[in-house]
């Protein structure tokens, strides 16, 4: 746990996991750097621990959980809109996301 809002699960990870909701516009200090949330971050969701470039692996639990589909800045929400599975597409009620072209 790095503060009351986020946990770091493995020192290799490039994402933090939210353990207490933080709304868009709220500022927080993460590992000594101030950042303002650009989206509502709810429990279980991830934000970037560092700058992540398109194509880079997203690391959680110390292992890859997919790849970035665009550049992601420090503190940004990491989810279906900017990462995808390296195995099989995910889906929401409205649509499939991250399908391999």
């Amino acid at each position, binding site marked *: 746990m790095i503060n009351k809002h986020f946990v770091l699960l493995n020192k290799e990870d490039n994402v933090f996991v939210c353990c207490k909701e933080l709304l868009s516009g709220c500022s927080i200090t993460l590992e000594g750097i101030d950042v303002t949330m650009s989206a509502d971050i709810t429990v*279980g969701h991830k934000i970037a621990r560092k700058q992540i470039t398109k194509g880079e692996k997203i690391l959680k639990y110390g292992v890859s959980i997919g790849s970035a589909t665009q550049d992601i800045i420090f503190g940004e929400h990491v989810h279906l809109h900017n990462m995808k599975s390296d195995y099989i597409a995910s889906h929401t009620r409205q649509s499939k996301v991250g399908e391999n072209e």
Partner: protein
Amino acid sequence: MKGYLRKDGRKGIRNVVLVTYLVECAHHVARAIVADCHRDDVQLIGFPGCYPNDYALKIMEGLCTHPNVAGVLIVSLGCEGFNREQLANTVEASGRSIETLVIQKNGGTRKTIEAGLASVKKMCEDASHAEIVPMDISELVVGTICGGSDGTSGIGANPAVGMCFDKLIANDAVCMFEETGELIGCEQIMAERAITPELGEEIIKSVEKAEVYYTRMGYGSFAPGNAEGGLSTQEEKSMGAYAKSGSSKIHGLIKPGDIPAQGGLYLMDVVPDGDPMFGFPNIVDSAEIVEMIASGCHITLFTTGRGSVVGSAISPVIKVCANPETYDNLSDDMDINAGKVIKGEATVEQVGNEIYDLVLEVAQGKQSKSESLGHQEFVLTYKKFDAIGPSCLPTVR
């Protein structure tokens, strides 16, 4: 600990009479019999289809001879394809009470319900005389499943169940985990935990099969709620789900209905063999719970983040909730608050011990939350499996 001794030597932690319908056309009659009994220990299971299916027969045989089951009433319409004679013979050979009522031969709905009520009443009376004997932890079979997973599941609940599994296996119990479609991405690390290299190869093949199957279906084992809860990809969900297996060696790879002969950790391959033919590998969590019960599970540990409320017929389901907000919202349905881990209020080990203690209490008769709320969900559909290969259950230890 004590258990109900069955004539085939198996020991149960509940004393249930089952009413099972063998085709949807017999569902109403079977349901009416169960409803008119007004007893939690008279439970309804069944199979909807008219065409025969070897898998459904095997699972039904496993359920009707489960150690928690004292007697079975089969309700058949009469013209369906389910091999009711074989099912009845299997139950009879196990020493359990058995009766078959065929609606077409029994004068229809009303008369079959009346006959069924009399039959079930007699079976309950017989069940009340079941011999109660000492039962050891090593005789317990415990399964685990996750449902309604979110980004917290892999942090609190799943690793805590893994700790509980390690402790049960140290006591020589049988533990099983499943859903190879939710282990996509974990195949190499699982193979390294297999007790033989050949078993490791079988495990890798089973996960590759799952990936091919789910790709053909067009969806991974991934629900919209998973994404709403912060999970972005199948492999992220897999890594969290995998933690339920703990750190023991993997002793075997089984398929639904296969019953492990000795203690240890087993992976259940729930994805059908051959070309996809009956649709999704598991249409819903309850179908997976049923498969693990058919393989002998006395108790299922169900981890959740979004908040599943289901239970099961035959064997109690214990809910382990990973998300502290969900726990606060659904605490009437949740047995264990694993949300304490992500809030920093408890360690994974503490919650693991809490789960272990509750497993023993439920095994001794305490009702789980879903059980006391009357949840007895049941789903059985069509599937096709080949028998497991010779490398799947190594005899070496």
